[in-house]
């Protein structure tokens, strides 16, 4: 009976759109995206935790993080290694640029095919594109079943996985054979923190481009010596894609226009918290039939 699983976790580096503070605002009241810190997409951390729990339970299992993005996105792979992942692959190439979700999932599925895992665990949704589409599309491209909105993996054996899904008004428990794609909800268990020993071990892990940028650095020297410190870096050619399905060309959706959301100022009447002023307001609302 198989008791080791090969797991791929999909993780995206995203700008932190959740806390758009004053420093990230332009004088026109719009968001300056460059000023937002780049973070590990929150629900991908939940996905990573789900994968690490499988590894805890079935020693010998491996967790590989797959991320598509610029060189800088190697940061999320390192972060994942500090938390317990075994290693990762950064898919990076100009040819991927401008991808919509379909072209993104196509590229990811090509890389996943090469990694040949027993399962792929993704986050439900990325906080920048906000579509929650990539997980299901990767599943379709591979011809695998998908289980979305997963909150907890309840059971796993070589035949399949039992998963609790969190839906809007309730829960559902489903059983799916392997291989499959699972997308994990933010309501699932939080990810374990970085581990001090793992930080010591993996802090010099680099992608080749990073090592080449500073060939004389200690990190580059260490990476050259130790296999486990090498984070794989794959360009488009490494995953044998159909070039017409990549990047901008492979994207059926096109962004026609982007507008920044600006607060419309209204003439508002300002009242103080006195019985008189509040009384006047209520009387006015009753007279205009807004109330009553």
């Amino acid at each position: 009976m198989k008791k080791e699983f090969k797991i791929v976790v999909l993780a995206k580096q995203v700008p932190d759109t959740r806390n758009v503070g004053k420093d990230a605002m332009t004088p026109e009241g719009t968001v300056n995206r460059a000023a937002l810190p780049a973070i590990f997409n929150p629900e991908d951390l939940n996905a990573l935790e789900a994968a690490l729990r499988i590894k805890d339970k079935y020693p010998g299992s491996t967790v590989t993080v797959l991320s598509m993005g610029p060189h800088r996105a190697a940061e999320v792979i390192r972060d994942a290694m500090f938390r317990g992942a075994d290693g990762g692959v950064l898919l990076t190439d100009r040819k991927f640029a401008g991808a919509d979700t379909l072209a993104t999932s196509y590229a990811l599925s090509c890389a996943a095919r090469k990694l040949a895992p027993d399962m792929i665990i993704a986050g439900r949704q990325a906080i920048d594109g906000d579509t929650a589409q990539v997980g299901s599309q990767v599943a379709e491209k591979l011809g695998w079943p998908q289980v979305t909105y997963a909150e907890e993996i309840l059971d796993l054996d070589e035949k399949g996985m039992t998963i609790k899904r969190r839906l809007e008004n309730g829960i559902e428990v489903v059983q799916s054979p392997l291989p499959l794609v699972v997308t994990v909800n933010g309501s699932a268990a939080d990810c374990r923190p970085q581990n001090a020993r793992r930080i010591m071990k993996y802090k010099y892990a680099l992608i080749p481009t990073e090592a080449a940028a500073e060939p004389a650095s200690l990190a580059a020297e260490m990476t050259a010596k130790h296999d486990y410190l090498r984070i794989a870096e794959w360009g488009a050619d490494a995953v044998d894609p159909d070039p017409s399905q990549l990047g901008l060309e492979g994207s059926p959706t096109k962004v026609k226009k982007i507008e920044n959301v600006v607060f419309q100022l209204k003439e508002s009447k300002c009242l103080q918290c006195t019985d008189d002023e509040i009384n006047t307001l209520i009387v006015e609302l009753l007279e205009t039939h807004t109330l009553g």
Partner: protein
Amino acid sequence: MNNLFVYIETEGGKVADVSLELLTKGRELADTLGCKLEAVLIGDGVAHLVPELAQYGADKVWLAEGKELSPYRTLPHAAILCGLIEQEKPQICLMGATPVGRDLGPRVSSAMHSGLTADCTSLVIGDHKDAKTGKEYDQLLYQIRPAFGGNIIATIINPDCRPQMATVREGVMKKEFAAKPGAGEVVKVDWQKMTSEADFVVKIIERHIEERKINIKNAGIIVAGGYGMGSRENFKLCFDLAETLGGEVGASRAAVDAGFTEHARQIGQTGVTVRPKLYIACGISGQIQHTAGMEDSAMIIAINNDPEAPINRIADYTIIGDVNEVIPRMIKAYHKNSK
């Protein structure tokens, strides 16, 4: 051919509101395009819902019924919808941005290799000229959606692939009987031909879905409480005010996350969209993700102890003060003045 599809979601023998909202919108778009509005109804014992779909404008209903088709599972529903899309070649296919629609839509869009725009807040028909090739397109679907945590609004088009697919969040579009009901012509779908054994490998072994008890979407008056209400105890003030004024209680995400009230009351980008005639925001700062769900309210009153709170900028009235003092005074003033 080249008509407009709406995927109909059902739960507990009823059509989901969002599907009726999409039929209403779909009717308007189909009239503009001069095409038919067709509903895709997949489930078990759902034929009795056809007249309702016709009332909302469906010219035709593609009906696939079978025990295996309910409750919803991704693979069989996706296979049937894909089968119908291949057969009928609709130009547009719409579904709710619900857990079901957001599970089904991407699967179908990937299989059909057609783009999908998530969580649209507005859909309009417009022309387009490609800046690079100069190619002109007539009557595309402009799919307008917030992204980037609600900080930007993008207009997305799908010039070359069909169908143009979009999901739309519940409550964003209005739901209305069609001015002239559709014919609701039923076409039974031979779905067994469109599915295979492999589409049924995922089994549902347990399911607890509660019927939604709270429905703030259609309330005329909403008293919404935020993190500034301070505690679950204090949040009751919102219920007191809502009861006095004959309204419903809503909440910000921070209030829901803090456990002041249930998620069904959350208003905003990841909650419900509302447009009541009166919205009273109590201790809500007015972050963009919240205002996205309420800014179309006819009148907004903000109660906040911070004169600089962003909510004040979209409010018709701001009352500067502590919610614990303002709300009881409002209740008192209402009792005094209403008959």
